[in-house]
């Protein structure tokens, strides 16, 4: 029997195409997953501030700069005046500090690039988490080892729920820990 063009298309080309499409999709889905969740995102900042130096080597407490983390839903990126507490004296001759001083003296806000972001319709509150004893590193990764701040974990609803459902597993350092709320209104309002 003679093979027709239609036969060929249906029996060979179609399954082949479908297979290629499926494989490409699955591969792209898994390979790009981290990128889609922004894991590894490390934008270049206007001032090359190093958490490794400040939080790691010099062991400055996170809350010295992120002052609102126990009070507000925002941890707050520090105002330039906090940097100037030290840098009005310390390392004034370094190029990055000269940049900082210029911002401060011209009263211009520093346009830091945002690294971590959740959608507008999710209302995350830093203070409730930190006040329950959860450490910054549990979500933000080993910040004190980062030269440039990089997103270490996904900030998706899955990531939130993973921890809310199994806090004992995710936060082993907490002696007593309750399950986090899983209802919609806990985050969405």
């Amino acid at each position, binding site marked *: 029997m003679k093979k027709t063009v239609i036969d060929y298309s249906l029996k060979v080309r179609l399954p082949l195409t479908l297979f290629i499409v499926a494989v490409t999709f699955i591969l792209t889905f898994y390979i790009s997953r981290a990128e889609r969740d*922004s894991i590894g995102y490390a934008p270049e900042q206007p001032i090359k501030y190093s958490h490794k130096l400040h939080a790691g080597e010099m062991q400055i407490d996170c809350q010295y700069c992120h002052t*609102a983390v126990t009070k507000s839903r925002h941890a*707050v990126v520090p105002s330039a*005046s906090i940097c100037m507490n030290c840098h009005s004296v310390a390392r004034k001759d370094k190029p990055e500090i000269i940049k900082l001083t210029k911002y401060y003296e011209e009263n211009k806000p520093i*346009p*830091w*690039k945002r690294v971590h972001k959740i959608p507008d319709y999710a209302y995350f509150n830093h203070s409730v988490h930190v*006040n329950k004893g959860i450490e910054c590193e549990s979500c933000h990764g080993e910040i004190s080892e980062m030269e440039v701040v990089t997103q270490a974990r996904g900030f998706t609803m899955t990531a939130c729920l993973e921890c809310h459902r199994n806090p004992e597993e995710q936060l082993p350092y907490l002696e007593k820990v309750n399950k986090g709320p899983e*209802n919609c*209104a806990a985050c969405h309002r």
Partner: protein
Amino acid sequence: MSKSRNETKYWKNLKEYYNDPDVFEEKINEFKDGVTDDFETSHLSSISRRKFLTLMAASAAFSATACTDYRDKGEIVPYTRRPEDLVPGIANYYATSLDGYTGNGVLVKTREGRPIKIDGNPEHPINKGKIDAAQQASILNLYDPDRLGEPQQNKKQISWNKAINSISGELKKAAEQNKKIALISNRITSPTTNSLIEKLKEKYSNIEVYSYELFDDTSKRNAWNKSYSGSLIPSVKLNEAEIILSIGNDFLAKDGNVVENIKQFSSRKEFVKEVNSNRLYVVESELSLTGSNADYRFPLKNSDQKKFLLTLLNGLVSKDAGLGSQFPIGFKTLIAKHDFAALSNIDKKNFDQLVNDLLENTGKSILVVDERASEEIQILSHLVNEILNNNDLLCFSKAFVDYNSLSNSDELKNLVNELNSGNISVIINLDSNPVYHLSYIDGFAEAFNKTAAKISLSQFENETTALSNYVIPINNPLESWGDFYVRKNVYTLQQPIIAPLRSTIQKETFLLSLLNEKLSSDSEILPLVKENFKKLVYEKNGAIVSFDNYWNNSLHDGFAVIKIEEEAKADFNYAVLENISFGKSAGGLTLLLKPNHFIGDSRFANNGWLQEIPHPVSKVAWDNYAAVSPNTADKYQLVNNDVVEIKSGAKAVKIPILVQPGTTDDTFVVELGYGRTNSGDVVKDVGFNLNNMISLDSDSPYSISGISVSKTGETYELVSTQEHHAVDDSKLKDIHLSRGIIREGTITEYKKNPDFVHEHDHPIFSITDEHEYKDHKWAMAIDLNKCIGCSYCVASCNVENNIPVVGKDQVGVGREMHWMRIDRYYSGSPDNPEVSTQPMICQHCDNAPCENVCPVNATNHSPDGLNQMAYNRCVGTRYCANNCPYKVRRFNFFDFRDNFADAFYENDSTALVHNPEVTVRSRGVMEKCTFCIQRIMDARSKAIAEGREVAANEIKTACQQSCPADAIVFGDSNNKESEVNVFREHKLGYHVLEEINVKPNVTYIAKLRNTESEDV
């Protein structure tokens, strides 16, 4: 006969009362005509389409870049120097005052420096934490895109320096030419403004000050002066009155300091903790909010008020002759001529009871009359209170200060003459709108227009700025320094909460600039405010602390209390009674002009939130109308929406008709403040202007007799919210009567049978197991005895929860977005119906029927008893709204910010008004009351920070916070200390539609009327 809900017929409108087939039709059809029609793309604004294309282009660009790199997340821009006490994400509160009429204090909530909510100042001695709907919604005016931003000369933008220089030049020119300068203003209650005007008058001796109010209360002040020579008008301690008789005084909605009145009145409608109720008699011509809360209401034509008062005096004196011992002989014979028979339509039994109640409660009752009634009526009311010893209820320490009296009609007419003759060559309009308001003074607009130099200060364009050479844009009250001295013992301070958003100055700065002949800055007003404060408060009080300390504390509190000694009231001047004439009735038709509930004298007209809150009684939104009684409508063959022409002398106006049960026959009641011709986008083509019908010369300027009315044959559509979204009370009337949506009775009935509310309850059982709420379980209770239906809660909810304005056309098809509605039911006869109001919000049912039908699980139940709504999960099937027995779900048929009047509410400026803690919903999602989840979460995070549990009565929802009657209670029903449990377990507590076993979490406390007989 005992009244039970099976026997009382409630009706929402006249059609229903008369079993009109339309109503049956309406009940069968869930949606109004046109709602279910195919979607027409032309209904979308052009902006949407453009935005759609932009978005498509943007998403194409995004998807292209997304393959190559991480998505950009924008920037975080911190302060360079963070202001002290300002933490991003945490609200700051500032005390100030926005309104010189009541001098009420407000507390403004700000986030990251921008005001987002206005509430009453809880420490303020007059309004005690509550504030009216207009001031709550006025936050929108701050961000209104229609605000004027630059000074103009002959409609062209000029610089501030040039404006001040050329206006100073005009003033000097007038002085050189021996011409006068007229300064027109509304009533001034600010000592600082006043002192600046005085200084300006010293500099330019040719300045004449004219002040006016659309609703003039001069007769009230004059009458008090005649009765008690000279003293200031005292306030009334309504909370101490056992019997309140109001003759045409709408003190719960329009007259006096309404917030203060409601708080005092409702504090005496207490049935939950103890039975403690006053009794309210209302004698009135239109069905007002006060009348709808009356225990006994007598419909009476406005022109018969004097007759009623004289008859009442006759009744009192004939029961107790001693009361009239000091009456002059002539007056005695006059009142003897007024017997009850002359009062038609009034029930003899009830009238006798009123007389008895007043006699039995001497010293504990009060009579209040129409604020704008003639002097004779005011004097007679003083007399009744005097002979009944009710003066103990007058509070002289909180008297109303008469800082500046208003110009009378002769003075205003003289102003027109002087303008016409050219004697006045400069007019300074100090933030008023005389061309619109004073249209009842013949030829005012023409005379104004003739004047050489016209300078108008205003926040918005209006009828007067349109005719002015110079337009000076001024600050919003939230951007200004100031002070108000309205009540004798309270001096209220105003501080700026935000720097001016546009290039504006405050009106005091303008006056100061004229004084200095160069542009001054707003900061120069502060020393003047301080100076006046020092003189009028600090030195008077003899405070021991330093002035700076005293000032800072007072500014922080928003007010200072002035120490005054309680002065004894002067004696009543009986001689004044000799001039009282016989109380005649005026025949024919009467036009009664009233203030509006929300937009005031039109100063808040450009505020969509206020335009859209339905009228508390008629439920009409976005319009004014002439309300007539059903009988009068029949007589003139008028139906709703018919446009009539009302003529009085040479004046004629057109206005649509609304048949309003409870109006007295032959009376047309119209609220003023509508029909603007030059103003912002919102108020364009809204309502009808009847200002020119006021006749200031007559005895009763706002009640015009002898009008003629003719049908024009035109119609004009009024939209009302009562006919849709009403709880579906089924197609069969008998079933509806037994549903018990409203349950009420009388005190006597309650005392006899405390369980009467639950008499008809059936045992309810569930086929499934009860769900257990382990931790919190949020619940609300609404006391219908205290609720008067003022709708301030609706305003508060709108601001708190980012509720959009949808516009008249959308309200007309039943798409208003208010999460809270105040249902109003009538019962009894249409001539004098009884009114029941019921705030209706999401009931957060334990067995919520909406939850089961959501195909995407966007609405479900939280472990703390909330019926939650996840907007980003909603796909807009509207099954939930269809299944909700209370009809409290609202669907975003459009992106309403973008849909209203060419995206009026979608711009950088109005976006600032949004509460950052609540999602701004977009098109295609369902929304509803959340029990202010953002406030619950806020309290929770505070409790966690402090390592404690959420306290029993810690959380206040927005509606609860603003309720001047304290009718709303919210709390955790699992906590024994919660106040809400007292209400939930009370015998008067019931749930709406509880027989369908949805287990609602909003408990209503049944209303008890304080009437003698049981059949209401």
